[in-house]
C-alpha cells in the first residue's frame, strides 16, 4: 500500500514545551487512527501536515508533496475537519459547503453540485438550506465533515470527529468515516477514543507527550491472546476455577465476576464446556479475549 504521509524526525516546540519530539511516520493510504491523550501532539501534527506551522526540525511529505517546499500544493490535496466549532453560523449548510468547495479550487457550478452530493452523503440533504447556527452538534459535525470532503481531497484529516456526539450520532459519524475509506479517500482520524479507532481504522499511530509510541496495522495490535473469558456468574467463580485447575487449566478471576482461562486449543474449550456442565452452572458467556487498544496504549505509554 502506498504512503500517504511521510514524516521524518519531526519536532515542534512551543516555548519550552515539546509538542512533537523527533517523530518518524510512514502512513499508508486507508483509514489511520491517530491516538493520544489531550496534549499528545495530534492537532500539532495536523497543523504541520497542513503547512500551517513550521517544524523546528524534520521533514513532512503529504500525498507525495514536500509540505515545506509547497504548502499550497499540499493543502490542495487535503481536507481538514477541525475539532472546534469553525462554521459561519449565519450561512446555510449548502452555502458553507459550496464556499469551501470553491476555496478548494472547484469551479462555482461544480462546487454547488458537489456540496449537494456530499450533504446528501452525510445525511443533511433535507437541512441543507437551513442556517448552520440552528444545527445540533451532530449536524454541525456532519457539515464540518462535508466541507472537508467537498473538494474531493486525497487525504482527509479528521480531528476528534465524534467529540460531543451522543451514542447514535457517534455511531453514524464512525459509519461515515468507515464509508469514506471505502470510497478510496485516505483518512487520518485523530481521537482519544480508542474504541473509535478500533472500529474503523486499518492502521494505528499512538502518540504520548509528543513521542511516537506505536505505529502498526490495527490487526497486528488486536491479535488473539490465547485467553478466553468465561462468565458463569460471580458466585460460581471459585468453584469453576478449582474444577478447571483440577483438569490442568490455569484460570484467574478478572475482577468483574468472570474467569480468564488460558487455552491452547479447541480441546481446552471442550473441557471448559464439560466442567461447566458437570457443575450445572449457567454459562452466560464464553469468548476469546482480544487485546484491546486500551491494553496496547496502557502498555506503550508510561504517562497514561
Amino acid at each position, binding site marked *: 500500500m502506498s504512503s500517504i504521509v511521510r514524516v521524518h524526525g519531526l519536532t515542534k516546540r512551543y516555548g519550552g514545551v515539546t509538542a512533537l519530539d523527533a517523530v518518524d511516520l510512514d502512513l499508508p493510504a486507508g483509514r489511520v487512527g491517530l491516538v493520544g491523550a489531550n496534549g499528545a501532539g495530534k492537532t500539532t501534527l495536523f497543523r504541520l501536515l497542513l503547512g500551517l506551522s513550521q517544524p523546528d526540525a524534520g521533514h513532512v511529505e503529504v500525498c507525495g508533496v514536500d509540505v515545506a517546499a509547497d504548502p499550497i500544493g499540499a493543502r490542495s490535496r487535503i481536507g481538514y475537519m477541525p475539532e472546534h466549532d469553525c462554521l459561519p453560523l449565519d450561512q446555510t449548510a449548502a452555502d458553507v459547503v459550496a464556499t*469551501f468547495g470553491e476555496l478548494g479550487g472547484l469551479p462555482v457550478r461544480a462546487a454547488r453540485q458537489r456540496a449537494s452530493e456530499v450533504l446528501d452523503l452525510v445525511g443533511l440533504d433535507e437541512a441543507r438550506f437551513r442556517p448552520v447556527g440552528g444545527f445540533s452538534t451532530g449536524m454541525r459535525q456532519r457539515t464540518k465533515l462535508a466541507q472537508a470532503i467537498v473538494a474531493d481531497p486525497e487525504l482527509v484529516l479528521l480531528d476528534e470527529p465524534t467529540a460531543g456526539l451522543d451514542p447514535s450520532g457517534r455511531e453514524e459519524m464512525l459509519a461515515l468515516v468507515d*464509508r469514506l475509506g471505502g470510497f478510496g479517500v485516505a483518512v487520518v482520524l485523530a481521537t482519544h477514543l480508542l474504541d473509535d479507532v478500533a472500529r474503523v481504522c486499518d492502521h494505528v499511530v499512538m502518540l504520548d507527550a509528543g513521542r511516537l509510541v506505536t505505529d502498526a496495522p490495527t490487526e497486528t495490535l488486536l491479535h488473539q491472546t490465547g485467553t478466553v473469558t468465561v462468565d458463569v456468574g460471580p458466585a460460581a467463580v471459585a468453584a469453576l476455577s478449582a474444577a478447571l485447575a483440577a483438569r490442568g487449566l490455569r484460570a484467574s478471576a478478572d475482577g468483574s465476576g468472570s474467569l480468564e482461562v488460558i487455552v491452547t486449543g479447541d480441546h481446552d474449550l471442550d473441557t471448559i464446556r464439560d466442567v461447566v456442565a458437570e457443575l450445572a452452572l449457567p454459562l452466560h458467556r464464553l469468548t476469546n479475549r482480544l487485546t484491546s487498544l486500551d491494553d496496547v496504549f496502557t502498555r506503550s505509554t508510561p504517562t497514561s
Partner: protein
Amino acid sequence: MSSSVSTGAVYDRGYRPYDGPRGGRRAAAAALYRTSLRRAVGLRRPWRQKVAPAVLLGIAVIPAVINVGIGYLTRGTPAEGFEFITYREYLGVSSALLLFVALVAPDIVCPDRRQRVLPLIFARPLTGRDYGLAKVGAIFTCVFAFSFLPQVVLYVGQMLVSDGALDYLSDHTAVLWQVPIAAAALALFYALLGVAVASLTGRRMVAGATLLGITLVSSAIAGILVEADGGDTVPTGHAAALLNILALPLRIRDLIFLGRIGEDAPLSGVAGGGALSIAAYLAVVAICVAVIHQRYRTAE
C-alpha cells in the same frame, strides 16, 4: 389483486470522485473575494442585510438625480448651466460611504475570527496575503462602485439634458479619467482602513465603532487645531488639517481634479500641501497594509 411489478429502485449515490477542472491558489483567492463581495452587498442573505447597500446606493445617487433634474428644468433659462454639485465635490462627500464601510468591513472580516472560521480557510490552498487581498478587494469593489456609479448617472444625465450631447462630451473629457482614478484612491483608502480596523477584533460592533471613532475623532482634533490657529479663516491654511484621516482621500481627489488642494479645504495655502497630503495618504495606506499583513501573517 394487482400483479404489477414495481420497477422503482433506490440507489445509494455514495461518493463520487471529482475529475473536472481544479484551480489553485488564485482560484481560491478569487472564490474568497466573490464570497466576501456577495456578503458585502447582501446576496444570499436575509433582506435585512440588503438594506445597507441599497440605502447607500440610493443616497449616493440622489445628488446626481437632483443635479440632472435642475439641468432639465433650467434648460433655455438664464440659470442654464447651474451645477448643484460638481464631479469633484460629488466624489467622497457622502458620510453614508463611511457608514457603509463601518458596517460592511466588520461584517465580512470579524465573524471569520470570532467563529473560528480562519483555520478552516487557511487549511485551503491560499495564504494570509490572499485572504487580506480578497477582503480588501471586496470592500474596494463596493466603495468604488458606489462612488463611480452615481458619477456615471450624473455624467450621462447631464449629457442628455445639455443642448448638445457631443459638445458636453468634448467639454468634459477630463472627468472620464479623473473620476475613476479618484474613486479608486478613495475606495482603496476606505477598504484598507476598514479591513485593518476590523482585523483587530472579532466583534463587529467594536470594529465598526472603532472605525467611526478613528475617523471622527481625527476629524474633530484636526478641526480644533486648525480653528485654534485661525487656519480655517486665513488664506495660509494649517498643516494640522492633515490629521483629518477622513479628508485625506478628498485631498488626493483635489490633486487629481485640480492639480492642487481645493480652496475650500483647510489645507489650502499650506506650502507643499499636495505633497504632504500624498505622504499622509500613503502613510495611512502603509500602516493599514502592515496591520493586515501582521494579523494574517501566520495562518491561524
